[in-house]
């Protein structure tokens, strides 16, 4: 216990007299344990102060992740459906029924450069479709009857849910193919028992049901019959009311411009040409706008979180005056005290950032899986989130650290 052989030169101690004074130095490796000391003793407060940053970062990461995932989904749908589908209508009359186009419209559109496929359809005004002949005619259920041919399926890329589509032969007979919504409304879910519908005052046999068509909802609500049988039963006069056009993708805009004149050269301004995929494109833009808003909210949460950390650090500095005084007495320079508090604050921010990124990724993942989207979490969002949290940690720590460093050691020691 007694040290008789006491060496005067202890490790780190310079020679007793003369020479220069050893500087106060703190090893970088010691800075972390010194800084975490304060955190370890105040766990609840540490968790609470991390919360603000965690919420902000998770909001930003989740919003960016969810938007990106949903946009990827929209883009994939756009890709699948194509942006080159155009529809041509001749406007609608007061009763909201479509007005027929000239009989030549299909041919002239088909000859237009850049057009790949044309599918004419004609809404049969005043013709309804019902489950049975007992239903009053005015109860249409929002369904309409439409004449079409086999080009419709290829042009729209439609698939059959059950049965077959109209062909050359069935187009001549009282047979019908139901759109998805129409089939549901009429209560026909499959073709067992050869179901019939009461269509325009006659029985028509249902030979097929279409799957939902995303870009042509009016087809979903229609019962489709062939042109020949439409001409025979309902005096169809070869004038289509709505024409679907598939153009070459790169020439879509060009085709869009000339379609009205091609469809109705005499009164091109009566013709309305539209691109159904614009709805999806618009949704992409809306998603972008909401992203900006939510990222803005996340930024506010981060700001509040940063202030929270600064607040907690200021309190911590006040509470730990005697520790600061002790460290100064042990030889800590002002810079070491400042570094201790900045690193402590930095660690708080970083921990909040890590927690926030984890929560944000989890939320994005859960949401995307739930909605059947591809999970896309932009790495930039994660690294920027973490980086922001670290920067906020450091910034929030500067003022408290300077306060701690400028505290006179004697004053710090007195208040304990």
């Amino acid at each position, binding site marked *: 216990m007694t040290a008789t052989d006491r060496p*005067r030169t202890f490790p780190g*101690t310079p020679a007793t007299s003369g020479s220069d004074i050893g500087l106060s130095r703190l090893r970088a490796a010691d800075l972390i344990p010194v800084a975490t000391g304060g955190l370890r003793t105040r766990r609840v407060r540490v968790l609470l102060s991390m919360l603000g940053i965690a919420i902000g970062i998770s909001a930003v990461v989740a919003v960016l992740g969810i938007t990106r995932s949903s946009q990827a989904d929209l883009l994939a749908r756009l890709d699948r459906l194509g942006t080159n589908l155009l529809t041509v209508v001749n406007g609608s009359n007061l009763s909201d029924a479509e007005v027929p186009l000239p009989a030549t419209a299909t041919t002239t559109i088909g000859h237009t450069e850049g057009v790949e496929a044309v599918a004419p359809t004609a809404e049969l005004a005043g013709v309804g479709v019902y489950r049975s002949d007992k239903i009053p005619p005015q109860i249409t259920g929002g369904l309409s009857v439409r004449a079409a041919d086999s080009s419709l399926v290829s042009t729209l890329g439609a698939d059959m849910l059950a049965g077959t589509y109209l062909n050359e032969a069935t187009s001549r007979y009282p047979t019908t193919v139901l759109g998805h919504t129409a089939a549901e409304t009429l209560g026909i879910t499959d073709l067992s028992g050869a179901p019939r519908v009461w269509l325009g005052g006659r029985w028509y046999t249902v030979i097929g049901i279409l799957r939902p068509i995303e870009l042509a909802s009016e087809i979903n609500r229609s019962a489709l019959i062939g042109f020949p049988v439409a001409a025979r039963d309902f005096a169809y006069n070869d004038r289509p009311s709505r024409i679907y056009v598939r153009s070459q993708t790169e020439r879509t805009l060009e085709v869009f411009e000339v379609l009205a004149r091609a469809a109705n050269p005499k009164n091109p301004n009566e013709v309305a040409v539209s691109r159904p995929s614009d709805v999806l494109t618009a949704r992409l833009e809306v998603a972008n706008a909401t992203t900006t808003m939510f990222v803005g909210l996340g930024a506010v949460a981060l700001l509040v979180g940063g202030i929270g950390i600064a607040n907690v650090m200021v309190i911590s500095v006040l509470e730990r005056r005697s520790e600061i005084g002790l460290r100064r007495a042990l030889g800590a320079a002002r810079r070491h005290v400042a570094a201790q508090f900045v690193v402590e604050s930095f660690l708080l921010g970083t921990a909040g950032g890590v927690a926030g990124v984890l929560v944000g990724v989890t939320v994005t993942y859960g949401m995307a899986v739930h909605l059947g989207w591809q999970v896309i979490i932009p790495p930039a969002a994660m690294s920027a989130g973490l980086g922001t949290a670290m920067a906020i940690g450091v910034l929030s720590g500067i003022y408290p650290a300077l306060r701690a460093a400028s505290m006179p050691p004697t004053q710090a020691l007195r208040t304990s």
Partner: protein
Amino acid sequence: MSVVLEVRDAWKVYPGNPPVESVRGVSFTVERGELVAIVGPSGSGKTTILNMAAGLDRPTSGSIRIAGRAAHGLSDRRLSGLRAHHMGVVFQRFHLLDHLSALDNVATGLLYRAIPGGRRRAAAAEALERVGLGHRAHHRPHELSGGEQQRVAIARAVVGRPELVFADEPTGNLDTGSGAGVLALLDELNGDGTTIVVITHSEEVARAGRRHIEMRDGQIVHDSRSSG
């Protein structure tokens, strides 16, 4: 004998109306191996003198030389270096860090000398043995008695074998028995060659000191060495 501490006409004046003259022209020297007790009533300026001598406070005027180095005019980092390398301080309230074991508390005495952790702990274990607390190395401060806590604080002050150890009322928070133990320890360390300056208003401490400096109203009224 070499002089370890030299205080020359030190003044400490706190601004105010009228200004408070806490220390008024104090001069004394401490030689290597001495145990000096500074005694006097509260407000006599002894803590201010100790803070200035320990480099925790700067005198308004006058000079202080510690281990042959002038303390005035030093940058914060050099003055801090002087504390880290040449001095140890013991406080009345121990000032141990609650989240660290006794061993790690002692090791913080070497923290600001940039000595690697392993060597700090080895030296701390040795210092704990010196104060008779080797068996309490892994206890936290709250698991130790007051006397033991003050022994840990003393071990922390001497772990770097500083040239000067300052103790500010080291027995002020202890019962008589523990206080006597702490004084005996200081005496023993002094016997091993450690230079110690201890502040106290306890008669016993003053008697334990081989030399005592009595202060009143910011001035030295009696120095047992100069008066014999």
